[in-house]
């Protein structure tokens, strides 16, 4: 271990335990603590519009969902293109319950942390079930299996009257210690709930990756036969990878339902599955910072493309309809360029920065 716990300039690990620490230096810990304080304090210091809070909450919900996708696709190497369906499972667990017992039932309005957890568990159960084919299938074949799940989910929600045939199922306002959370506090309240959830889930993933179960995921991704030979169970590992992904997705779905005060099918389509995948890839597959940076980058890109097309719409001749094409084209182009020139994602930039700082001033 480095003598100076604040500024380590190289790798000084002498035990595996040291290498598995969450924070390598005190500076890391301080930086993380300051970041957390900043994230919790800024809404109280800077007045923010409901619209902006909605955008930020959406990003944080996507972060929770992408934790799951990154576990299954990034760490375990299993392609999933039905992740929005898992998010939908969580959302409809809550919304379906609200539809059955009443949107203002005490279970929905008062026991909401329990409902969020239950939605996560339901997501995990469906994840494990969908993960079963992973015991026999790989690569594109597995991708098709997850795509099938997305299709089955779409059909079920759109067909069953229990799910209001895909139309909105409302969910009542939740209660906090001082009474119901009103419209004025709604987005701020959910910002804190989602932030706490995102931080807890992030620490959960970080800790998982320090355990043998987390290392199993990576081992199975790198070579499942070798992992098998070393005593791991590749099939079981793949199933629990899907279950974990389903759990995080389910949590994200429940948060989405509470924040939007209901669930409707439009938020859980194949298009959304592709967006989640884009977030994981752009952020950096197989990295924890990638799960944070990807959703931020994609959501900001989407907003900027929206502004750009709106601005172009005011300048270009009305009958050309060019502005309407700019948004999907520009968005797609940025993703393609990103994949071509930075396939390791934004997390790689973060890694480069950290490496530079770690070695500074002794670069070699």
């Amino acid at each position: 271990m480095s003598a100076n716990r604040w500024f380590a300039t190289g790798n000084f690990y002498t035990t595996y335990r040291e290498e598995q620490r969450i924070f390598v230096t005190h500076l890391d810990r301080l930086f993380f603590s300051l970041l957390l304080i900043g994230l919790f304090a800024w809404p109280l210091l800077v007045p923010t519009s409901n619209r902006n809070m909605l955008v930020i909450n959406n990003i944080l919900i996507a972060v929770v969902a992408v934790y799951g996708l990154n576990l299954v696709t990034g760490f375990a190497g299993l392609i999933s293109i039905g992740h929005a369906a898992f998010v939908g499972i969580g959302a409809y667990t809550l919304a379906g319950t609200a539809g059955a017992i009443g949107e203002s039932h005490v279970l929905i309005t008062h026991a909401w942390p329990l409902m969020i957890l239950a939605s996560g568990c339901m997501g995990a159960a469906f994840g494990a079930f969908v993960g079963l084919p992973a015991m026999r299938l790989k690569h594109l074949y597995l991708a098709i299996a997850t795509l099938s799940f997305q299709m089955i989910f779409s059909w079920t929600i759109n067909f069953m009257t229990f799910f209001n045939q895909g139309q909105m199922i409302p969910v009542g306002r939740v209660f906090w210690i001082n009474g119901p959370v009103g419209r004025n506090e709604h987005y701020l309240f959910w910002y804190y709930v989602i932030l706490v959830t995102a931080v807890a889930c992030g620490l959960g993933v970080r800790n998982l990756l320090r355990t043998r179960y987390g290392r199993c995921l990576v081992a199975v991704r790198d070579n499942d036969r070798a992992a098998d030979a070393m005593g791991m169970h590749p099939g079981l590992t793949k199933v629990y990878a899907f279950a974990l992904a389903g759990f995080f997705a389910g949590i994200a779905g429940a948060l989405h339902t509470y924040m939007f005060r209901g669930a409707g099918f439009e938020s859980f389509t194949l298009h959304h599955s592709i967006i989640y995948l884009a977030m994981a890839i752009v952020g950096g597959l197989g990295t924890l910072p990638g799960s944070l940076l990807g959703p931020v980058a994609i959501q900001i890109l989407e907003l900027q493309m929206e502004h750009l097309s709106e601005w172009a719409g005011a300048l270009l001749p009305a009958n050309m309809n060019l502005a309407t094409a700019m948004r999907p084209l520009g968005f797609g182009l940025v993703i393609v360029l990103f994949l071509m020139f930075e396939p390791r994602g934004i997390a790689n930039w973060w890694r480069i920065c950290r490496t530079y700082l770690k070695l500074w001033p002794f670069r070699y």
Partner: protein
Amino acid sequence: MKRFHYRRWVVAVAVVLALAFTVPVQAADTYKLGLSLAITGPTSDAGNPYSKGVEDYIRLANDTKILGDAKVECPIRDDMYETAVTKRNFEDFVDQEIVLFLSYATGANQALAQDYNEVQIPVIPASMDKSLMAASKYIFLPIASYSHQYVGVAEYVAANHKGGDTPKVAAFIHPSAFGRAPLDDFKNAVAAGLKLDLVEVVEHGKDLDNSALLQRLASKGVQYVLCQTVQSPVATLLNDAQRLGMTAKTFGEKGKITFMGAHYTGGNDLIALAGTAAEGFHWTTSYRLTSEKGPWTDWQLDLAKKYGRDEKTANSHNYANGAMAAQVAVEAIRRTLEAGQEVSRESLYATLNQMSGDKAFASLAAVGPVSYSATDRMGVDAVQLYVVKDGAFRSVGEPFKPKYLK
């Protein structure tokens, strides 16, 4: 000399400042609306001309000073048919203190209904789903609901079918609540005495060939297919029926099938997609069409020309749809100002609710007056039947109100 100049400047600045802080600036009021709809993504073929209709009418209202010196602004946002984006746009508009919201999709309106109730903002949607009126008392449908249009088509069949038998019909519907909701009202009408025999309900997929479906319907003796969906699946169905020689040349032709539909099944886009196969297709809406001569046609085409729209947009009933939604909103503002009231969400809501009886708004865009009250928030109650003849929709008879649906 220098000192004199200095003093003169100080006095001048003081006078200007005093005036600036004491005399109120007589700036004209600007009232803000907001429109969120699908300009890209699913249903953008309808959303695009709709947005242009709104945009052009707002510009016209300002250019021709319909509100006197006051102006109306209506920022338009693309929500790509995504409820989450619609919600974001709505919150943005509420932050900007809009007085009336122009919305779009059924799903998004249902999702936002609770917000409408809490913000207490009047809303005019592009969706004509009947359930929206129950979801929020602040939602005002511009024209007859999908259910009214669908039951209207069914009533026309029952009233005009020749022969003593009960007409056999099949429902061809969109696989969603949008398609299914009017069917429930249709079934209720049959249960209440509408003489029709519903042989089969078909929830269409994305089939590119409907031969087997059409053969099955023919073998069951189906004479009429009533569609409640969007244009492209109807166009596919019509093309296949034409290829198989099943399309009725005249209404109710024996041994053939007459195809009919409600609002989003028809329009010029259907003719563009189906070509000659669209001939004989019967369609209901509450809007007037540019294929029919009349004052509205000239007005709509002039409006589109004035703001540089292409021919397709100018002739779209969705362009008329958007223009009329904006027209109702501006009219509500005008009446509120006329009554000497301050324009706010509250006063506009009250004004819209009073838009009935002799105060109903006669928009030339629709086949009847727009009337609202606290118990009836469906604007135009009447529907008009059109049929495709020689590549254009022509009106059949006079506008009517469905009897089996109140």
